[in-house]
Structures are given as structure tokens and as C-alpha cells.
């Protein structure tokens, strides 16, 4: 049955419209994609359903500081005697929401820049893409740290900064794709009728970029999670006492000897999430573009910029 479906896809007479759906189906047929999806979904479920089942409140005192695991506190307690399990269950939701928000914003910014540059060409393209190059020269985390340490850490600024740090990569990918599309005759044909650029881009250029954009979204989401939890680890963007995976890793380092779970549990959850999203995105890209190009897209553009 599987081979039949693959062949049907290869025959190429299926509708182009379903490119994303087809890539998703392809990703779900590969073990890489299945494992990645299960990992990511497990952590998502934990972060969003966790608060409903957490046995204690985040700041409840349940045991002596840094106690190893015991009855009522299966992962032990942290340096303030709070329940590690409950804090892991409670500490993911805000992180994930911020990551999704900043990724979404980054996608909008990056796409706007990339597609405008490709469509306008001339000086606008030069200005926009050289700006992107300058931003790309900064390592993402360094850039974010610079901004938050100068301007402070209100949540909106955090989201905006992470988005700006991610946007250049997206702009690059979109620009490369859009350059090709804008040259195609069907885009030229529409432009000849005098259709305004905004409409040409929205109706004819962007839909053709949906697949690389979907890959980029998955990839950037993984990085956003890593950056934001990294910031939290360094003490930016969270109020003291609020549970957050990044903060927990930092707080509980001192008690590692007596209760390693205080560090291991949040670190494990973060790792599973980051690896899971990456695996799934990779499988999706492979299904969408074929093996060779997927390597360029995901591994090539991603790893160099990993903070």
C-alpha cells in the first residue's frame, strides 16, 4: 500500500496545490518524521496539559531543599524545597508560547523583506539584503543578549528581539526562492497587466514559496525555543520564582549532587523538544524537496547559526 502511494505521488499528475499536504504525508511515512513528531508532541502535551495535572503549586514547599525523590515528590525537590515535577509541568507553557509568537513574527518579517527584495530588485534589493547580511554576521544569541541587557526584558521586547534575530535567515531563504519565482513567465504575465506588486506577490509569488516557508517555520521554532530557554537560563525574561525550564537548569545546578533530577528533567524535556522538531522538519523537507536539497536547506542553513 505504501509503495502504491509513493508511486502515485511520483507520477506527478496529482494536484500541485497539495504540495504541503503531500510533504506532510511523506514525512509521516518516514521513521525520522514519526519519531520527531512523537517527541515534539509529547513535550507539547506535557507543557500544555501539565498545569492541569501538576500535584503541587509552583511555589509549594514539599520537602527539604534538594531532597532526592521521595513519596509525593517523584523527582525530588529543588533548592527552595519546591516540587521539581510540578515545576517541570508548569514551566513550559510560557516558553512555548513565546517561541511560537517570536517565530511567527520572524516569519512575517523575514518573508516581507525577502520577497520585497526579490520583486523590487535594484537598489531596494541591495539595501534590504545587505542589511540582512549585517544582521546575519551577529550570532543570534549574542544579538539577543546585547538588546535585552541594554533595553531590559519586557516580554514583548523579548519576542521582538528573538524575531529580529531569526528574521534574516528567513529573509535569505525567501529571497532565494522568490528570485526564481519572480523571473517565471506567469509572474511576468500578471505584472504586464499592471496588477499592483502587492497583489502579484500575494497571489502568485508567495503560494509557490509555501513549502520552503513551512520548512523554515519548523526550523526556526526549534531555534526560538533554544534561544528563549537560553535567555531564561541566564536570568533574562522571567520573574524570580516563576517556573521555567531554562531557569530551573540554572537554579538547580547547586543541588545537582543531591538531586540531579532538578537539572536533568528540564534539560531532557528541552532536548527532546528541540531534537523532535528538528527531526520532523528534516523529514518534511526531505519529503518536499528530495534528499539532496533537504540537506542544504535544513542542515546547511541551520547548524551554522545554532547558538
Amino acid at each position, binding site marked *: 500500500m505504501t509503495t502504491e502511494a509513493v508511486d502515485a505521488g511520483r507520477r*506527478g*499528475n496529482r*494536484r*500541485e*496545490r497539495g504540495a504541503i499536504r503531500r510533504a506532510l504525508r511523506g514525512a509521516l511515512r518516514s521513521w525520522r518524521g514519526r519519531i520527531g513528531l512523537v517527541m515534539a508532541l509529547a513535550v507539547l502535551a506535557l507543557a500544555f496539559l501539565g498545569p492541569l495535572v501538576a500535584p503541587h503549586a509552583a511555589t509549594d514547599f514539599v520537602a527539604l531543599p534538594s531532597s532526592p525523590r521521595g513519596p509525593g515528590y517523584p523527582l525530588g525537590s529543588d533548592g527552595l524545597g519546591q516540587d521539581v515535577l510540578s515545576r517541570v509541568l508548569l514551566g513550559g507553557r510560557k516558553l512555548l508560547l513565546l517561541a511560537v509568537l517570536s517565530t511567527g513574527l520572524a516569519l512575517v518579517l523575514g518573508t516581507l523583506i525577502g520577497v520585497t527584495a526579490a520583486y523590487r530588485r535594484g537598489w531596494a534589493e541591495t539595501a534590504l539584503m545587505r542589511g540582512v547580511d549585517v544582521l546575519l554576521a551577529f550570532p543570534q544569541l549574542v544579538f539577543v543578549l546585547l538588546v535585552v541587557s541594554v533595553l531590559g526584558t519586557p516580554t514583548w521586547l523579548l519576542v521582538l528581539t528573538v524575531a529580529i534575530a531569526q528574521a534574516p535567515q528567513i529573509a535569505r531563504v525567501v529571497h532565494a526562492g522568490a528570485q526564481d519565482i519572480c523571473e*517565471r*513567465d*506567469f509572474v*511576468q*504575465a*500578471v*505584472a*504586464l*497587466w*499592471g*496588477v499592483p506588486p502587492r497583489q502579484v506577490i500575494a*497571489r*502568485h509569488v508567495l*503560494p*509557490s514559496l509555501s513549502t520552503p516557508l513551512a520548512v523554515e517555520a519548523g526550523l526556526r521554532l526549534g531555534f526560538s525555543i533554544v534561544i528563549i530557554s537560553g535567555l531564561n537560563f541566564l536570568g533574562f525574561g522571567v520573574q524570580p520564582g516563576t517556573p521555567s525550564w531554562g531557569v530551573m537548569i540554572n537554579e538547580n545546578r547547586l543541588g545537582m549532587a543531591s538531586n540531579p533530577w532538578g537539572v536533568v528533567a528540564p534539560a531532557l524535556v528541552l532536548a527532546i523538544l528541540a531534537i523532535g522538531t528538528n527531526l520532523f522538519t528534516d523529514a518534511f523537507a526531505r519529503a518536499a524537496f528530495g534528499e539532496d536539497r533537504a540537506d542544504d536547506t535544513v542542515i546547511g542553513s541551520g547548524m551554522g547559526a545554532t547558538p
Partner: protein
Amino acid sequence: MSTLGAVAPATTGLRVSGLTVVGKSRRTPIVEDVAFELRPGQVLGMVGESGSGKSTVAVALLGLARRGLQIAAGEVRIDERDVLALPPGQLREARGSLISYVPQDPGAGLNPGHRVGWQLREALTVHRGVLPAGQSVDDRVLEVLAEVGLPADPELLGRYPHQLSGGQQQRVAIAMAFAARPRVIVLDEPTTGLDVTTQRRVLDTVRELTARHQVMSVYISHDLAVVAQIADRVAVMYAGRLAEIGPAAQLFADPRHPYTAGLIAAAPSAVRATTLEGIEGRPPRPGAWPAGCGFADRCHRVQPDCRATLPELVTVGAGQEARCFHPVERGTFKIADRPAAPQVPDRGTVLEVRNLVAHYGAREVLHEVDIDLRAGRCTAVVGESGSGKTTLARCLVGLHDRWHGSVTFEDVAIGPRPKDRSTELRRQIQYVFQNPYASLNPRMSVGQNIEEPLRHFTRLDRRARRDRVESVLSEVALSTAYADRMPDQLSGGERQRVAVGRALTVEPEVLVCDEITSALDVSVQALLVEQLRRLQHERGLSLLFITHNLAVVRSLAQDVVVLEGGRVVEHGPVETVLSDPSHSYTQKLLADLPDLGRTEAVAS
């Protein structure tokens, strides 16, 4: 002409039998049971439209198959030696010395990293014993260069392939193929992409070398006229099988398979303006071949038995065989029966171009071009590649804005860019692109693609737009069911018709067509040409038709403008210019043009 059908198994000659190529994974037949014979000094022309399997046959003759394919059965006997049965080492030895190959793209056939002389010498030194005693490699290189009409000087041998013109590259490739004096040479569309003059020279060279060295040449082409000019025998491929095979003159004068007859009827003639007859539909894809005749769905002579069983090749004349149960009756095919193209009255100028000068960067590519496009008529702009004809079209529609001079549409001046023009002007002049595979948005259905200009130019509601789409589809002879298909489900010809339809939705006065038939097979080209002719007569549409194909010009256009090097060298009514060209360039273009009509005259 020879009567090869009667020849008993000869000791010398090429004998191909039962050649079958299949897909590796599912064993889908791509080419099935191809068989033919050829005697020394003869050329077999193999014609077929894209996807007919002719290139697969070409490489299979050398024991090769494209990635994913394999040769499943068959024999390729050269002087009684079966090439396909040779062990790998000997097969490798045979390629180049016993059978050689000239690829379609000469640029791709030569190694860009080595000098031409080095490559020619290599063709002789990889195989031992190809040279007679006493002849050195360099002697032979100079000999073959002279044979293909290239100057045998060291300067040329020291050049790299990119320093040669396309025609020179192709002649070097042919020289390499002939260098080791193989018995069989396979030429896979070697003149596609060359202009007619160069093509003429390449054909003459192949013809002459084949005769002089008594080799057997298999010449693959989609162009009937080219094959008519070079071949002794012609094999017509359709959907992976031979449809008809026979002596060239006889086959073109008296085709018996309906497909062969259809192809000839679809080919325009450069000497007589006739209407054309296309073949609707498309060949079955590999894997979807019907149980019966592959041509049944497009054939107007189809009977129930055609669909039930696959016809065998049967002898229909002296040395002529056709795979058909109900062949065209002997001697009834008359190319001259085709009605002459109708006349069109002159109703004054609609688009006037004066002193148009265009630049690419610092280079001036069009020099003071004057053109009058007359209302309701078709003006063809012809010239070879690089003559500036496409640039001219792009200037007129607003794709190329680096020009000055005056262009007026119904006495209104036209600006260079789309935004310098009024909406009305942009509607009145529509453009159809050369490549039908790039001009439709692949993410939109055919209906949505056609609807797109309506959204911009009109305020029609959904229903009205849908009605318009349906009427346009019927105008380009596509059923309304096409509205919901996606472009990638259509053939090249169907896509091009959709592109024409899209241009017509807003009822323009002028249609600028840039080489719109050059990517199409002849049977499909004929359909498109006839549609344009109908639009011209029924709607009074004025056409500016850019092309390099003089035969199409003769069939469709009323006026013609000949461009050479960005200059108009001759213009006037098609009758006058093509029948009695005054400029040497036009004369040369016409003289070198292969034409089916001429062969017909020779045969009768």
C-alpha cells in the same frame, strides 16, 4: 529507391530486432519490439513526437539505457555481430569503433575542459587498431576535420568547445563520431537548436560521409522535413512502437498509417500557404498503453477491432510496413488537397513602430526598426537566433524598457513600461510567452489562470467570470472540464492553448506571440496555428507572430518582416517576400530550408 523489405539476412548491414526497453522497477515497457534493417551507405530517419521513445531507441542501439530503464530484449546486429550480447569489456570497445553516437546538444557532447584537438585525438587513441598502418593519429584528425568542412588548422584544434559556434561544435562532434570509422552512427536530433543554414550544412555532411564510408546512420528527429531531406528509409515511432517504416520518398508520398498521414498533414510547407490539420489528443503514457493500437484514441479511422488487439506491422507496399488494421488506402493521400490559406483584407494600421532602437546594457540590439501591424492581419517577424526578434516583442509588450523611438497603438503613443501605459492599452495588447511550461501559474487551476486577467481588468462577479472562462475554453477548443484541471496535467500544446485563451479573455486588439509553437510537436503546432487563424478571421484579431519557422509563416501570416542582426532587411506581403525574396539573407534562409513539398516533387 531501394526495396529493403525483400532483402534476405545480409552479411553486412545493421539488423535490429525485437528491441524492447522497460522501466527497471515495474518493467513498464517504454519501447517495444522495434525492428529495422539498414544497408551500408544508407540513412534511416527515425521520426516521432516527444515521448515516442525515439531517443530511448537511439541509446539502446549502443547498449545503453537512461537511468531507471533497462534493455529487456532484442538484438542489434552489426555485420552479424550482436552488440547487445557482447560482454561489457567488448561492448565498451565497440562503442566508438563499431558504433558511435552524436548527441542532441553539441555543447553537452564535448568536454568543456579539454581542447578540441585533444578530444578528437582521444576518439582515435582509446581504441587500438582503428587506424590503418602508416596513418598517424594527427593525419586522421586532419582528414576528418576536412570531411566535416572545418578548417584543418592547428588554431582550431587548440580551441576549447566554448570558443566554437554551435554549428562548429556539432561538426566537431560529428567528426569525432566518424573518426574511428565505425560501422554505425546514431545521430540524436543533431540539428535541433541550429539555424537553418547550419542545419543544411550538417545534413549535407552526414549524408556525404555516410555514402563515402559506407556506414549506416540512424538519424533521430522530430522534424519530418529534415528527415525527408536526409533519409533513405524512414521509421515513424508512436508511443514506443514503430507505427510505420518504409523508403523515404514512398512513405512521405503515400503514407499508409493514419498517424504518418496525420503528421504530414500537420507539417506546414514553406512553398505553399495551406491550412494545416492537427491531431487532437495526446499519446498514451508508458504504463498506460491500451491493449489495442496506441493511436486508436486519436485516429479518425478507428474501428472496434483497433481497441481490442494490437495490430502487427504488416507489409503495405514495396518495403513499406505499417502497424494498422485499417490503413489509409494506397495512393489516396494527397498533400495538395489541403485547402489554401484564406486571404485577409487590409484594414489599415493598428500598431505602428518607427525608429525603434533597443539596448541590452551598452549594446544596441535593435537598430531603427519600423513595423506596421495591420488590423486583422498577421505580421510575422522572422530571423535567426540573435536577430533581435524576441527583444522586439518584449519592447512592444513592456517587458523590456530600454528602448526609444515611437510605438503607437491606434494613434496613441505607448510608453516603455507597463506603468507608463493606460489600463486600456495594457488590455488591448496581450502577450503569449514562448514556454508553455512556465507561463501558467502551477498552483492555480486552468480556470483560475484564465480568470486572472478578468479579476484585474473587469468587475465581473464570480458567475460571470466563470461563464467567460468557459466561452474562452471553447474558443481555444478545450472542453469546459479543463477549467478544473491543473496545468501539470496538461500537455504542452494544451497549456499553450490555455495561455492563448488567457490572453483572449480581455478581448485584446493585438496578440503578440513569441515563438509560441517552437516547443510544440508538429501535430500540436498545427492545431494552434489553425486556432489562431480562426481567431483572426472570427474576431478580427491582429497578430504579431515572432518565429524562426518560415513554413509556419507561410501558412499563417499575411505580412512578414525579416530581421537580421537587429535590422529589418526585408518586409512586405508573405507571398512576395517568400516567393521572390530580394535580400540575400532571406534568399539564404529560404534556400536552406528543408521542405516536405520538395521531396514530394522529387518522388512523383
